């Protein structure tokens, strides 16, 4: 029975679980999807188990600089003799932390703005959406550069005053804070639009009207009817934001306004790799491949999820 097979999402969290189950089922029929999932799993495993690797990402070894890949150093060593596998692993860690945190910030803001905008409507909706439109008008990479440069400039110079605690956090995060804020503050635009359109169509459904007649407060309606039904759209927007966040972090770090060295990030690794592209091309190729394949995998998975969440396709697929 199909009713038993696909238990529907009853809580907001349920949508994600159901999405994952369906994704795994779909992977059996599609080798590219399987490969992408495995690749993502590898990246996650690298990030999680980075400290367990035999080499330290920060320990320099002048005697073994710029080594090509060998049995000892699988991906070679960099210009200071640090093991590339270890650095890629820590880089993966940075990328994932940035991606997850930025996505959380972006989704939180996006869901809030989108829901309020659609639910309140009228002038509030107009003002919020025109603001989103004008933010869209900026090329988001440029905007990210501007924000990142501002945050970096402000926080690395301020030591006293009310910004002091923030500067402290900034230092502890090794430059990550700027990247996170930038990504979180620019990434919510698409989410807010998606959520808004969904809430607009939901808020006048007859079950919401019935709930209002029963005397429910706005918050009760949002909590019990709107947010659970918006969950699939939120999941959808996550599939856009995560790869975008990874790419932007790498880009900002490449330009030197992202993660501070010596913390390895795929972006900074590419930046230093370009300096010795003639003599030691593997220093560029390895991190570039890491970013490229991770993004490709995320995109394939995102596409698959989108197909699975699209009700029209799902129905035709099942019938």
């Amino acid at each position, binding site marked *: 029975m199909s*009713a038993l097979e696909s238990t*529907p*999402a*009853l809580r907001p969290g349920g949508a994600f679980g159901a999405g994952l189950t369906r994704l795994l089922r779909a992977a059996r029929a599609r080798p590219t999807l399987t490969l992408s999932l495995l690749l993502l799993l590898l990246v996650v495993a690298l990030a999680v188990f980075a400290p367990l690797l035999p080499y330290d990402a920060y320990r320099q070894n002048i005697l073994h600089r710029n080594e090509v890949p060998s049995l000892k150093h699988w991906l070679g060593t960099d210009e200071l003799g640090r093991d590339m596998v270890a650095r890629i692993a820590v880089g993966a860690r940075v990328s994932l932390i940035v991606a997850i945190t930025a996505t959380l910030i972006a989704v939180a803001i996006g869901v809030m703005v989108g829901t309020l905008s659609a639910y309140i409507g009228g002038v509030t909706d107009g003002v919020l959406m025109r603001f989103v439109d004008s933010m869209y008008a900026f090329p988001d990479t440029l905007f990210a550069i501007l924000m990142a440069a501002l945050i970096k400039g402000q926080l690395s110079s301020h030591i006293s005053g009310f910004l002091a605690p923030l500067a402290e956090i900034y230092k502890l995060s090794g430059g990550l804070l700027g990247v996170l804020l930038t990504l979180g503050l620019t990434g919510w635009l698409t989410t807010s639009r998606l959520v808004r359109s969904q809430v607009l169509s939901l808020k006048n*459904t*007859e*079950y919401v*009207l*019935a*709930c*209002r*007649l*029963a*005397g*429910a*407060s706005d918050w*009760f309606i949002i909590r*019990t*009817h709107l947010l*659970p*039904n918006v969950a699939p759209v939120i999941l959808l927007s996550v599939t856009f934001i995560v790869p975008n966040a990874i790419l932007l972090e790498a880009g900002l770090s490449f330009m030197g306004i992202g993660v501070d060295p010596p913390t390895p990030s795929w972006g900074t690794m590419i930046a230093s790799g370009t300096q010795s592209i003639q003599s030691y091309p593997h220093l560029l190729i390895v991190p570039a491949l890491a970013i490229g394949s991770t993004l490709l995998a995320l995109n394939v998975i995102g596409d698959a999820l989108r197909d699975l969440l699209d009700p029209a396709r799902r129905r035709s697929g099942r019938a």
Partner: protein
Amino acid sequence: MGKTDATAGKPLLEARDLRVWFPRSRGFLRGQDWIRAVDGISLGVLAGETLAVVGESGCGKTTLGRALSLLQRPTGGSVAFAEADLTRLRGRKLRAARRRLQMIFQDPYASLDPRQRVGAIVGEPLKIAGVDAKARQRRVAELLELVGLGAEMASRLPREFSGGQRQRIGIARALAAEPRLIICDEPLSALDVSIQAQIVNLLLTLQRQLGLTYLFISHDLAVVRQIATRVAVMYLGTLVELAETSALFAAPRHPYSLALLSSAPTLARRGAAADRPILLAGDPPSPVRLPSGCRFHTRCWLRERLGNPEICTTEAPRLVEEGGHRVACHFAAETSRQADSLMGPAPAAAVG
């Protein structure tokens, strides 16, 4: 206009000069005009009765229902329910004042949240009212039994049910708030005919058992005739006629009501009228640019028969008492006479 018979007491739900106009932009910087979905309706629903609202699609029936429940805030006029002026209330006070006013909706597929279990759906009004989980569960079971579903259905999801069963769930949810009045917004039009009969019977039984009052919005005249105490006929956002069901079906006074009744298919229609329904030409005019004078004059067969009198295009008729009906037509008295010569004499017994 808003007065009701002094003998019947104060109406449970009363609308005075109710207006719902939707703004429609004509384009950037070109101003806006208004869609007059409901335009000056006054009516009262008496406790215990079933007042049917009929009219063709797009005449504003649904908007009227939404405005009466304040789900759609009216642009003008007032709505009073159980002595409380709903149009003056907002927020918490409004929610409290209209708790005993519930609605049953048209689409049984859109009226239940697909993610909620039946128990949660029916129990929602109770939860909002602060009833604790245990009492809620008991009450939900009672309500489900009351509408002809088993208590064990509470753990199922809406999609496991048919349209008729879903409509029963919707009714159970409305009953959970212990309503005095239920606005039924075309509750049958999405259902099969055999299921319609079951739901009609359920509604009638519930009315008897619980002393409910219905405002029944419909375009199905056969059903209206069966269950309504009084019928209000709507055309383009206004009432054109309001009368006791038997009186209206026997001898409608407004030319539009007559056309509406004559177009309804019935198995056994008395008299020659069966063969010659009055067909109205064209679509109703746009509720944005309303005709001058009487809104119906552009399609009125009676006006044509009377040689297009000028008053129809210059002056809007008011809803006035006319032989037991309330009619908005300058020539209400002519309707039945002209209809006789148009369609043959009406059966003598029907004229009251």
